[in-house]
C-alpha cells in the first residue's frame, strides 16, 4: 500500500471535511490561546480566527483561516472563505504584533476569498492587496503554515511570511483544479489532469522554492498521527523563532523581501 498518492488524491485529502482545521492545530501546538475578535470597522468575520498564543515564555499573534468542523459551524464561518473584513482583521492583528514585538503565525486553509456582492462592495481586492503589503513590511518574524487548501489570492493574502511550511497532504495553488481546467481547457471535467499539471503538492512547491519546509504527515488520520504533526510543527516554530532571534528588524524584513523578490526564475534573453 505504499503507492504514491496522486496530486488529485491529495486535493481530496486536503478538502476532506474531517481534516483537522486551524483551531485544532492552534489548541494543540500552543500552551495557551485566547481568541480576539473584529476588524474595528465593519464586523467580526468568522472565516478568520485571530488571537494570542504562547509556547513556554514565547508569545505569538495567531492569524488563521478557519473552516467549520460541523455544518452549523461551516455556515457561521462561510466555509472558510473570507470576506474583506477577515483580511482587515488580520491586518489589525499584524500591526499589533509589530507594536508588541510578537512573532506572527498564520494558518492557511481556504478555497479562496469569498466571491460575493458584498465582498466586492467592500473591496475584496484591496483587502487582500493591503494584507500582503502590511505583511511585506512587518518588523517581526512571520511563519505561514499551509494546513489544508491554499487556494488563490485568498490564501496568499496571509502567506507573505519569512518561512512557509506546508503539510505533506496540503495543496497550494493559483485556483482550484476544477477552475483551472475550465478556464484553461474550457473543460471542467479535466480536473484530475489539471491537479497533476498545476504543481500544487507540497513536494512540487518545495522544488519550486515557493515553500521552505514540508511537514510529514504519518499515515492515517488517527489521533496519534495528528499529535506527531503537532509535535513537528511546534518544534519547527520554536526552531525558526530561535534562529531569527539574533536578527535586527531590518534583517527580518529584508529576509522576507528577498524571498518574494526572487519568486519566479526567468530566462534572461540578453545574456544569450
Amino acid at each position: 500500500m505504499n503507492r504514491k498518492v496522486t496530486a488529485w488524491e491529495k486535493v481530496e485529502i486536503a478538502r476532506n471535511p474531517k481534516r483537522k482545521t486551524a483551531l485544532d492545530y492552534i489548541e494543540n501546538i500552543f500552551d495557551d490561546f485566547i481568541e480576539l475578535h473584529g476588524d474595528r470597522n465593519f464586523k467580526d468575520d468568522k472565516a478568520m480566527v485571530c488571537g494570542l498564543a504562547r509556547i513556554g515564555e514565547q508569545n505569538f499573534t495567531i492569524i488563521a483561516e478557519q473552516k467549520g468542523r460541523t455544518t452549523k459551524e461551516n455556515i457561521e464561518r462561510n466555509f472558510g472563505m473570507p470576506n474583506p473584513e477577515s483580511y482587515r482583521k488580520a491586518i489589525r492583528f499584524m500591526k499589533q504584533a509589530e507594536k508588541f514585538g510578537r512573532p506572527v503565525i498564520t494558518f492557511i486553509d481556504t478555497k479562496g476569498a469569498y466571491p460575493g456582492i458584498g465582498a466586492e462592495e467592500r473591496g475584496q481586492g484591496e483587502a487582500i492587496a493591503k494584507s500582503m503589503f502590511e505583511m511585506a513590511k512587518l518588523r517581526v518574524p512571520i511563519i505561514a503554515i499551509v494546513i489544508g487548501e491554499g487556494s488563490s489570492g485568498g490564501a496568499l493574502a496571509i502567506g507573505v511570511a519569512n518561512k512557509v511550511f506546508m503539510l505533506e497532504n496540503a495543496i497550494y495553488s493559483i485556483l482550484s483544479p476544477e477552475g483551472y481546467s475550465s478556464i484553461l481547457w474550457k473543460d471542467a471535467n479535466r480536473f484530475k489532469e489539471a491537479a497533476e499539471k498545476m504543481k500544487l503538492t507540497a513536494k512540487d512547491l518545495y522544488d519550486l522554492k515557493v515553500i521552505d519546509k514540508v511537514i510529514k504527515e504519518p499515515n492515517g488520520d488517527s489521533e496519534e498521527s495528528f499529535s506527531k504533526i503537532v509535535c513537528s510543527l511546534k518544534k519547527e516554530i520554536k526552531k525558526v523563532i530561535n534562529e531569527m532571534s539574533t536578527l535586527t528588524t531590518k534583517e527580518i524584513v529584508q529576509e522576507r523581501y528577498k524571498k518574494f523578490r526572487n519568486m519566479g526564475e526567468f530566462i534572461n534573453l540578453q545574456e544569450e
Partner: protein
Amino acid sequence: MIVDKIKKQEVKNVKNKKPNIDIPVGKWIKCDNCKEILYKEAVRDNLSICPNCGHYFRMHIGKRLNLIIDDGTYKRFDINIDTPNPLQLEDYPRKLKSLREKTGLEEAVSCGIGNINGEKVVICIMDSAFLMGSMGIVVGEKITYSIEQAVQKRLPLIIFSTSGGARMQEGIISLMQMAKTTAALTKLHEAGLLYISVLTDPTYGGVTASFASLGDIILAEPKAMIGFAGQRVIEQTIGESLPEGFQTAEFLLEHGFIDKIVERKDLKETIYKLIKFHKGGLTYSE
C-alpha cells in the same frame, strides 16, 4: 467585399465573446455598445472612443503611450526576459509566439521612463490584447523592476492596469507575482514616492488584489469593469444575477475604492496635475 468583412467580424465577435478589442481585422470595427459599424481610422483618431456613442474601446500600449507620454520621450527599460514555462505546458510557448506575432507586443506590459508635460515618470502600461493582460513571471518581474527603478531614480510611478488576473499558464508562480510586486511597493512607499494607479477596462483578480489597488491615488476610466472575482463566478456562487452597474468604475467610486473617474481625454492633464501636487512637500524637523 466590405459586407463580407463585416459579417466575418460579427461571427468572430460572437464566438470569442471578447468585446471591445480593436485588433486590426480589416478597416471596420463594430462598437460593442451601440452595435454601429465604424470606420477604424475614425475610432483611432478619437482616442479609441466610439464617435457614435462614446463607448471606450480597449487601448493598445502604443496608443496609450501616445496619449499620456510626451512625444519622443519614452525609453523602454532594457529588460529582455522570457518565461521558463514553469508548468511545462506543451502549447504555452507556441501560444506566446503566435501572440507576439499577432500583437507586435513582447508581453502584456511595457515599462519604461518618459515625460508627462515635462515631468519625468516611470510608467507601466498593460495590454489586454496579450493573454488578457494576465500576470505571469515576465509581467511580475517587469513591474517589480519598474518599481525599483522609480525608487532608485526617485521618480513618480504610474501604472495603467488592465488584466484578467494572475496567468493560469504559469500556475502558483503567477500567484507569487502578486506578493512580489506588492512587496516592491513597500519600498516605494518607504521612499516617500508617489504611485498613481490607473484602472482601465477590465482589471480583475490577482492584479486588482495586488499593485492595482495600492496606489496613493487610484484613477479609473469611465465604465471600466473592475473587481476581484469574475462575474460568472459570483453568479454561480450566490445563485442570483448581479445588480446593474456592479463592478463598474462608478460602482467602485461609490463604495470608496477609487479616488476619481477621469475621461480619457483628461487623463494626461489630471496625472500631470497630481504629480505637481506631490512635489515640494515641506520637510519639518523631528
